[in-house]
């Protein structure tokens, strides 16, 4: 690993000031992804500013009925928190399907939002990658791309976001709170937090330089009864999703009054299935409606050479996740 300066920030003002003073510095939360990438020589920060000890560790309920998750709280403590298990079991389920016990103990919520793609061309420094080295080309576009995107990609980047947590947050409709160096704060809708590659595939999200994630806001719970996180992967433990579906249904008097639906493993960002959600609202929770929602969701899929399987798998996964969500506590 290349040498760097390790800075222990005593408070958030110090952390923000240190980041503002060094444009090649990075914040360090749990480090489960960043330290790995530094060993691989993919990330080369000149300074790490440790933010794990700054607080932001609490889970609290809000007046609007929602909850706030501290950005520095570990994934394990979040997923296993009694309030989260009870009110947002979809989020718990997705988070517990990710990584391993040791990584969930170390990884922070803010860090999970910032984890980088596991595209093998991004990791392999001898290959071209516009995300790692802008302008060098995309090795995966015409390379081995079975694990890559079917939505929202372009010639510059076909990588997918690897997070499970973020797929659930997209389905739930979370918000991200950030702090800026001038002391002001900003709230970002979850669907605007991650971005598509566009002409800047090196940027995974819409954070501005130095902004620090302090919390994730969850809306009033809607899917505490009918929920399911379906994760399809090449082996049944410790693997990233080929396709995942986070499905939440709010059912009143036998009718779906609200649906939350998002997919992982298919795009550069957690892929919210807005059209399918709208279609399901006001419908009966029946297989034919789930199938129609799945068709709508996958209509604009554009598979690459090696990943056409994801289109059919995606439809089946949506139907299965919705069915499981409905049947849970039905």
């Amino acid at each position, binding site marked *: 690993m290349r040498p760097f300066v390790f800075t222990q920030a005593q408070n958030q003002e110090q952390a923000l000031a240190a980041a503002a003073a060094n444009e090649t510095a990075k914040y360090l939360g749990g480090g489960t992804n960043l330290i790995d990438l530094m*060993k691989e020589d993919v990330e080369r920060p000149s300074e790490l500013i440790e933010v794990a000890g700054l607080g932001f560790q609490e889970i609290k309920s809000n007046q609007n009925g929602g909850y706030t998750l501290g950005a520095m709280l570990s994934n394990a403590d979040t997923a296993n928190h009694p309030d989260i298990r009870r009110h947002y079991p979809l989020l718990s389920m997705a988070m517990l399907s990710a990584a391993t016990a040791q990584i969930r103990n170390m990884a922070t919520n803010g860090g999970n939002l910032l984890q980088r793609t596991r595209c093998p061309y991004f990791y392999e420094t001898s290959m071209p990658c516009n995300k790692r080295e802008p302008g060098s080309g995309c090795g995966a576009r015409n390379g081995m791309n079975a694990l890559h995107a079917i939505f929202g990609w372009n010639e510059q980047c076909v990588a997918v976001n690897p997070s499970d947590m973020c797929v659930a947050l997209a389905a739930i409709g979370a918000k991200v709170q950030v702090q800026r160096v001038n002391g002001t704060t900003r709230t970002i809708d979850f669907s605007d937090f991650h971005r598509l590659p566009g002409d800047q595939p090196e940027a995974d999200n819409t954070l501005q330089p130095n902004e620090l994630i302090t919390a994730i806001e969850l809306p009033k719970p809607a899917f505490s009864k009918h929920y399911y996180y379906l994760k399809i992967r090449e082996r049944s433990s410790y693997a990233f999703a080929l396709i995942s579906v986070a499905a939440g249904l709010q059912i009143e008097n036998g009718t779906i009054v609200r649906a939350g639906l998002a997919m992982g493993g298919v795009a550069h960002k957690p892929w919210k299935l807005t059209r399918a959600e709208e279609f399901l609202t006001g419908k009966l929770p029946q297989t034919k409606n789930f199938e129609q929602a799945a068709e709508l969701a996958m209509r604009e899929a554009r598979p690459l050479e090696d990943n056409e399987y994801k289109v059919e798998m995606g439809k089946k996964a949506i139907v299965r996740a919705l069915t499981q969500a409905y049947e849970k506590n039905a």
Partner: protein
Amino acid sequence: MATTINVSVNGKKYQDEVEGRLLLVHYLRDKLRLTGTHVGCDTSSCGACTILVDGKAVKSCTMLAAQADGATIKTIEGMAEKGKLHPLQEGFKEKHGLQCGFCTPGMIMTAANLLEDNPHPSDEEIRHALEGNFCRCTGYHNIVEAIKYAADKSKGGDIEHADAKELEKPLFEVPS
């Protein structure tokens, strides 16, 4: 630029100057000479380097020594007390939970965190907890048995009796 860290490892306090990029596993192995914690893959995949930091199992190959400042650490060397094996160590011995032994320290530390959170896990819960620990020898079966042994022991179960019954069962049906 060095950082000063204060850590407690297996009940002993240390203060050291460490370089930012020094990994915690290398601090433990090379500086404190606690070589029971192994480096397998060096990419947080295999779990051989698992230790307890403030009671939580973490992979020490993907944590900086500087991140451990102020932490209470336990490694495999801290498990036995007064010359007596920890029930997990005893379980691995009694149930043949190892062959080459390379993964064993990490397995035991991960299991220690599991039993702390969930003293009586089911087989499925044990397997889920171990998904970050690879064993290339045993096929995991006896590792699960070893952890159940430790869980039973803490429950005050009649282990000797259970053992005897276990031994009576043939491992494979021999076709006649």
